[in-house]
């Protein structure tokens, strides 16, 4: 069956500033889509447009096969959860949950039934008669989710719901949201700047920058085959290593400084010979050895050795460029050690330096 949300050629201008540019986005029924990007990329703005809290300049928004471009927020069949919880402070939890239903003139018996169900799912039954001020951050966000839940809608919109919580609570609620999605099967659109949330929650991630979706794909696809330099650099921590060089031998090899790297096994399009190319390799796809390996390798020197617990990070200098490599704990090396780097070309990404697109 069809899509739950369809955004068609959506454009939004604030005065002369263009915030969203000719955007198209389809979200399938029951899909969990995360809008990810740095601040000011337009991800929250897009969500507000979907919710009907911002009037768009051009384009159309369809939800559940209905054109809701000019519909009021309450008529769109959406529930929304905000970063600051946005609970009504003067009402009890029960009052917060029932406010929208009373506005929609839902009969009292039905209201009670829905609140009981939401409270059970979110385990907030003991809190129903408390005021928001008497709740902890995690409890407040649960109530905020409950407020979307009781509306009995098809689409949930989350606007950075976990950003105000501390790290431990954040990971707990993250799992809970995922569980909720599995249980309810609703369509969910989730805005965040936290790539861990994006990678763990999403069916598909839309990486945004400057009001444009840079890439829309499954988390692993985004991680392994970023479509351009921005996506490659934004996803992953520490960031992907970018080696500036050029492709030679009709596109069969990459020349980085004095080292020629064989591109056999590269997972991408026709490489061809390019004057300016960038080879992107993630820190965990590089091997470090103190003895020169048999094949070609990049000579480097260890600068800093960071111990992260489960593994360590080596920060190296190779051909004048800074690089980071993730190694197992037993692979730690003191600063100043001369090493040789081997790259896993099958998991690397090659970019054209001029267009910044993946080859």
């Amino acid at each position, binding site marked *: 069956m069809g899509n739950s949300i369809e955004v068609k050629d959506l454009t939004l201008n604030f005065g002369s500033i263009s915030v969203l540019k000719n955007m198209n986005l389809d979200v399938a029924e029951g899909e969990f889509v995360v809008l990810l990007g740095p601040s000011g990329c337009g991800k929250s703005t897009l969500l*507000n447009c979907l919710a009907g809290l911002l009037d768009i300049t051009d384009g159309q928004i369809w939800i559940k096969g209905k054109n809701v471009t000019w519909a*009021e927020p309450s008529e769109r069949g959406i529930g929304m959860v905000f970063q*600051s919880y946005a609970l*009504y402070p003067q009402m009890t939890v029960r009052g917060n949950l029932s406010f929208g239903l009373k506005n929609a003139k839902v009969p009292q018996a039905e209201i009670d039934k829905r609140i009981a169900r939401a409270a059970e799912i979110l385990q907030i039954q003991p809190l129903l008669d408390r005021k928001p001020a008497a709740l902890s951050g995690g409890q407040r966000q649960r109530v905020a989710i409950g*407020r979307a839940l009781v509306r009995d809608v098809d689409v949930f919109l989350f606007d950075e719901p976990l950003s105000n919580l501390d790290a431990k609570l954040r990971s707990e609620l993250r799992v809970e949201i995922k569980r909720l999605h599995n249980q309810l099967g609703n369509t969910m659109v989730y805005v965040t700047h936290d790539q861990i949330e994006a990678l763990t929650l999403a069916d598909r991630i839309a990486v945004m920058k400057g009001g444009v979706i840079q890439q829309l794909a499954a988390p692993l696809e985004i991680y392994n085959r970023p479509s351009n330099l921005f996506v490659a650099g934004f996803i992953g921590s520490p960031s992907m290593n970018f080696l500036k060089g050029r492709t030679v031998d009709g596109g069969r090899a990459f020349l980085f400084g004095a080292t020629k790297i064989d591109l056999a096994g590269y997972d991408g399009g026709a490489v061809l010979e390019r004057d300016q190319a960038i080879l992107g390799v993630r820190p965990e796809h590089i091997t470090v050895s103190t003895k020169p390996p048999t094949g070609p390798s990049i000579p480097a020197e260890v600068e800093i050795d960071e111990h992260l617990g489960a593994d360590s990070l080596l920060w190296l200098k190779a051909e004048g460029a800074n690089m980071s490599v993730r190694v197992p704990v037993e692979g730690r090396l003191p600063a100043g050690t001369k090493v040789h780097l081997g790259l896993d070309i099958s998991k690397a990404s090659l970019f054209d330096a001029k267009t910044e697109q993946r080859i």
Partner: protein
Amino acid sequence: MADTSMTMSGPRGAKPRKVLSGRNIMLYGILIVVCVYYLLPLWVMVMTSLKGMPEVRLGNIFAPPVEVTFQPWVKAWKEACTGLNCDGLSRGFWNSVLITVPSVVISIIIASVNGYALINWRFKGSDIFFTILIFGSFIPYQIMLYPIVILLREMGIYGTLWGLIIVHTIFGMPILTLLFRNYFSSIPEELFKAARVDGAGFWGIYLRIMLPMSLPIFVVALILQVTGIWNDFLFGVVFTKPDLYPMTVQLNNIVNSVQGVKEYNVNMAATVLTGLVPLIVYFVSGKLFVRGIAAGAVKG
């Protein structure tokens, strides 16, 4: 993380402080002097109003009355003459009530809705509208007096209570709108968005979400308006006629009447009576007033 196994040993609690330190003597000394300075006029007024005329003429204005009499108060309220009317301040009191209550209620209702709309329902030109409104508070009243007289005359309400009420409402608008706008801007915008998703409209959000959260600022507005309008003299004397003069104008007429003896005790009683309403408002809601001013000051 602090080590919880380490417990404090030895003396606990705050160190006892010396009561008669140099700092305390200075502090309380100045406070007492300032209190006396501000309370002395009130003392003189109340004492004089409780004396009979023979005792007043002795001239010991600080001395308490030898023989306490409430006659001056009764006279000030019921019998003092202003022009042809000899029914005391009571007429002016009820006029002031009839002027103040509607002016305060109407101006606060309109200004709070203004402030709410200017923050949460921005429209094209709302910022310009607000700027012009604020600019209005910088124009001296004197410039507007004559044009308003003409305006009210053309509307056929010159010299009526409703004319004066409209004038008070309009002149309260800039400062009150500013007050409410700044207070509402400190309420998180997401709350407003959540209410819209929940299907509440313009009035629903105003009445059910904004209003219950804004009690302190309503108290501030209430105090500002009650004292401002109750104490107003200029508009009262310009826009009404003698029958409808507010209490302040009548007080002036009693105190400044040239015929007969100057009855200082009656004048003092009349003055205290006139100041009673703002005084009571301050005492009752002072605490909320401070809270509201502070809350509004956080943002905007």
